[in-house]
């Protein structure tokens, strides 16, 4: 039976089906392998961050060095990119040695990563190089780098200089534990969370894939009921027929898996160019373990066989053909209830946000899940409404036939596009939420203008020379010192600024009428981005100059040159303080994390769209074969082929476009309700990439429908009537 199944799978008639199932499985497998390689790369990359956490002495591993070293890590920025800087001071020749360099740099020298070395060499020194005193002793080797573009520098200073740094500690070991398994390590990525996310993505890829194999097998079996029925007539048991159909699908899935391994090579190359974690992966980190290879190579065809077998339980092939079919009962309006309930749940939480994160998770995720379930439940009813309208209002026979056929069995018509609908819903929710949050976090037009150094040492006031140097930078509009107030006022604000200065700054809030000095945040940032009326401080403007400086805020024209020159001056003037940041850089990490999740969502969506498109093509082809005889007779009765094409196109395109509109609408509405409830924010129009993605998915699906049209001519030829 297995041999016969192989014969039928690889025969002329089975090649199209083989190609379709194989192609979809190949796409899914390639993406799945990419995700697994990504999980491995995340772990490998995270391990490369370990040595940078050597200041976390409790996590120290390995033998202690004879001569300890002083160690002070800090995070700097250059044009929005993170630069990890370690200031070190060895206390003797036998100090701890990090990977990628022969020894710790002595005072007056530094080791820089290849990317940073190149950047220093190609950037004017007053924008970057002047921040790093001394000469370059060497280039940090790749064994110490999380990615090829990593900007890392280890600067050798005197012991006194390093000890004065914020967070400086004495170390005698280099940490080699991954940040994700190290208590207290803070440089690196949330490896466990990202691995979990990638795991969810993997399942999200595998699930539609197996669903598709099941659907394709069921449709193929139903389409080929006549030949399976012939076998049943001759005494083949249902189990034998089921084995036959399962072997066909498993063969296709097996070949697809092999092709997927081939397709993985370009996917891997593509992945190595995308900075999912903020850093590109080394290609050598994007590898698969033998266990993963074996699991995918065996698991996917096996999973496909099981999915096919399970799917066939719903197809009953008797020796006379499929079991006598009656028109199923039409779906009823109650099917809209779960969808309405899901949206109502999300709407109910607007203004009633749960106070705990667990409560929020439960409220929003359950709401989104109910909406998704509601869409699947409501789909057949919506298809019925659309098809009835089409049949009623159509002026062409094609519309009448297509409408009546869809109305006769809207569940089947909807099933073909249900995967696409869920993919569009998920991408609309993800794009709506993430796009709005990213827009709110990182891309305000003024977010790159303001550079703030917020941890000035209280005993070191900015000198006239430094202020003059800043003011002389081309593109710097204003330099503002915020003074420190230990009393902090009602709202705990530590900064003081004269109302005259605040008025000159314009965009950073106002004083109360008659006030002389206001309490502000150290970087003048306004809560929720709205310039406020600041609290009045009971001090005189004249007394401010005598108070210690809290922070320095430099307003620039936002040009990279002005920002980086100012930053270099500030870092050189206050080397012990934390480096200054723009608002955009404050928000960059969070925004980047969101964008990474958006990218992962995009991968799931693109793959789901491809798989859903294949399911649609299988369904269209199945529908054509099912009606080859009536269509052939219509052609003999002089109905033009173009008219039949219109019937097929309408049958597929109408549910496709209808559910797309509903899915996108429900997706954005859900996103808006979530944003209103959680962030009191309104949905921001999605970016152009969203429209491109959706258009691509719909174009692909319509293209797949169109690609089945040549089959219409072939299966409805006069020979069909004769042979039947």
């Amino acid at each position: 039976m297995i041999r016969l199944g192989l014969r039928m799978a690889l025969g002329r008639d089975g090649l199209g089906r083989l190609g379709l199932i194989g192609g979809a499985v190949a796409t899914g497998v390639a993406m799945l392998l990419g995700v697994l390689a990504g999980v491995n790369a995340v772990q490998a990359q995270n391990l490369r961050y370990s040595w940078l956490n050597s200041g976390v002495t409790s996590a120290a591993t390995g033998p202690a060095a004879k001569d300890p070293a002083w160690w002070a890590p800090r995070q700097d920025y250059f044009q929005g990119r993170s630069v990890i800087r370690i200031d070190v001071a060895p206390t003797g020749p036998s100090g701890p040695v990090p990977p990628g360099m022969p020894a710790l740099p002595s005072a007056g020298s530094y080791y820089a990563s290849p990317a940073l070395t190149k950047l220093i060499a190609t950037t004017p020194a007053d924008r970057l190089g002047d921040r790093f005193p001394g000469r370059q002793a060497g280039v940090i080797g790749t064994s110490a780098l999380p990615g090829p573009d990593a900007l890392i520098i280890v600067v050798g200073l005197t012991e006194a200089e390093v000890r004065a740094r914020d967070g400086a500690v004495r170390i005698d070991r280099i940490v080699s534990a991954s940040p994700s398994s190290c208590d207290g390590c803070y440089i690196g990525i949330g490896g466990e969370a990202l691995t979990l996310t990638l795991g969810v993505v993997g399942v999200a890829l595998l699930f539609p894939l197996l669903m598709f194999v099941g659907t394709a097998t069921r449709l193929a079996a139903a389409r080929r009921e006549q030949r399976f029925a012939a076998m049943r007539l001759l005494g083949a048991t249902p189990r034998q027929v089921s084995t036959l159909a399962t072997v066909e699908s498993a063969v296709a899935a097996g070949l697809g898996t092999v092709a997927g391994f081939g397709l993985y090579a370009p996917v891997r190359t593509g992945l190595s160019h995308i900075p999912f974690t903020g850093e590109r992966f080394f290609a050598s980190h994007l590898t698969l373990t033998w266990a993963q290879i074996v699991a995918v190579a065996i698991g996917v065809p096996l999973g496909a066989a099981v999915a096919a077998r399970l799917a066939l339980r719903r197809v009953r092939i008797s020796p006379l053909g499929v079991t006598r079919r009656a028109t199923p009962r039409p779906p009823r309006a109650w099917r809209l209830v779960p969808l309405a309930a899901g949206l109502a749940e999300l709407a109910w939480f607007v203004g009633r946000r749960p106070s705990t994160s667990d409560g929020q998770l439960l409220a929003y995720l359950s709401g989104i899940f109910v909406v998704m379930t509601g869409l699947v439940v409501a789909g057949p009813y919506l298809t019925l409404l659309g098809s009835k309208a089409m049949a009623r209002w159509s002026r062409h026979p094609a519309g009448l036939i297509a409408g009546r056929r869809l109305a006769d069995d809207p569940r089947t018509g909807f099933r073909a596009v249900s995967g696409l609908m869920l993919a569009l819903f998920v991408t609309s929710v993800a794009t709506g939420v993430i796009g709005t949050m990213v827009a709110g976090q990182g891309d305000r037009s003024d977010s790159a203008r303001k550079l703030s150094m917020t941890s000035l040492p209280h005993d070191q006031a900015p000198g006239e020379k430094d202020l003059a140097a800043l003011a002389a930078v081309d593109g710097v509009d204003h330099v503002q010192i915020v003074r420190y107030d230990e009393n902090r006022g009602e709202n705990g604000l530590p900064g003081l600024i004269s109302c005259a200065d605040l008025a000159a700054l314009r965009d950073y809030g106002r004083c109360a009428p008659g006030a002389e000095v206001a309490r502000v945040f150290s970087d003048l940032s306004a809560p929720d981005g709205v310039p406020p009326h600041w609290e009045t401080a009971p001090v005189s403007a004249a007394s401010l100059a005598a108070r210690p400086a809290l922070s320095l805020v430099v307003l620039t024209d936002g040009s990279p040159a002005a920002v980086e020159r100012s930053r270099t001056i500030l870092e050189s003037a206050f080397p012990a303080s934390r480096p200054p940041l723009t608002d955009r850089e404050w928000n960059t990490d969070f925004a980047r994390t969101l964008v990474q999740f958006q990218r992962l969502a995009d991968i799931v969506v693109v793959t789901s769209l491809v798989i859903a498109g294949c399911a649609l093509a299988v369904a269209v082809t199945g529908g054509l074969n099912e009606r080859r005889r009536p269509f052939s007779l219509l052609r003999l009765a002089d109905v033009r082929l173009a008219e039949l094409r219109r019937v097929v196109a309408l049958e597929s395109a109408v549910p496709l476009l209808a559910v797309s509109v509903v899915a996108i609408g429900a997706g954005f509405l859900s996103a808006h309700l979530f944003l209103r409830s959680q962030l009191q924010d309104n949905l921001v129009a999605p970016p152009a990439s969203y429209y491109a993605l959706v258009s691509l998915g719909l174009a692909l699906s319509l293209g797949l429908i169109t690609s089945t049209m040549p089959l219409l001519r072939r299966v409805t030829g006069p020979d069909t009537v004769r042979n039947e």
Partner: protein
Amino acid sequence: MTAALRAERVSLSFGDTPALRGAEFAADPGEIVAIIGPSGSGKSTLLHCLAGILVPDEGEIRVDGQRLDTMSEADRSALRRDRFGFVFQFGQLVPELTAAENVALPLLLSGTRRGEAVKRAEKELSRLGLDGLGGRRSGELSGGQAQRVALARALAGSPRVIFADEPTGSLDSLTGEQVMDLLVGTAREQGTTVVIVTHDARVAAYADREVMVRDGRVTSPVGLS
């Protein structure tokens, strides 16, 4: 003598529509019986019940004295495979397979090795005048040739009973006559019982006995006592 086939008080409905109402039927070993009647009278349904394709709502069906209507689906499949042969009007050849493979299919399903099954199939095709056509697929055969291939397949397993539902329905009269000559001739040669459903008097004339079905009931003599 035990009847090769016997049906007693067989009733079957499709939903609210009764197809058979207490039908009676019997056929001797080696006997050729034609079931005739107008369209929609239930003659095909009776044949499907006799062949174990459909299970009656009421009544009994016995094959060589053995109850068929109480058998499991797997047992009925095995019975069809090992003891029955079928020739229907159309749609009975598997298009992916060659004529020889189609004839060999019941043998393959019952576990016969492929080489032996194909050899027996070629022999059967040769007996029915289809030499040299074993490698063709169903789409490359004429209607008469396809029907003879179906006949060869029905005979290949040396069945006890052959069920033929409108076996000449899709053929011209001359080709139909040739197919019937072969069916009846071979059956008599092998002592096979044949049950033919037809509305064609010329086909019915090949039978030893005719049974009339009307409104789901057998209205002419049933046969064996």
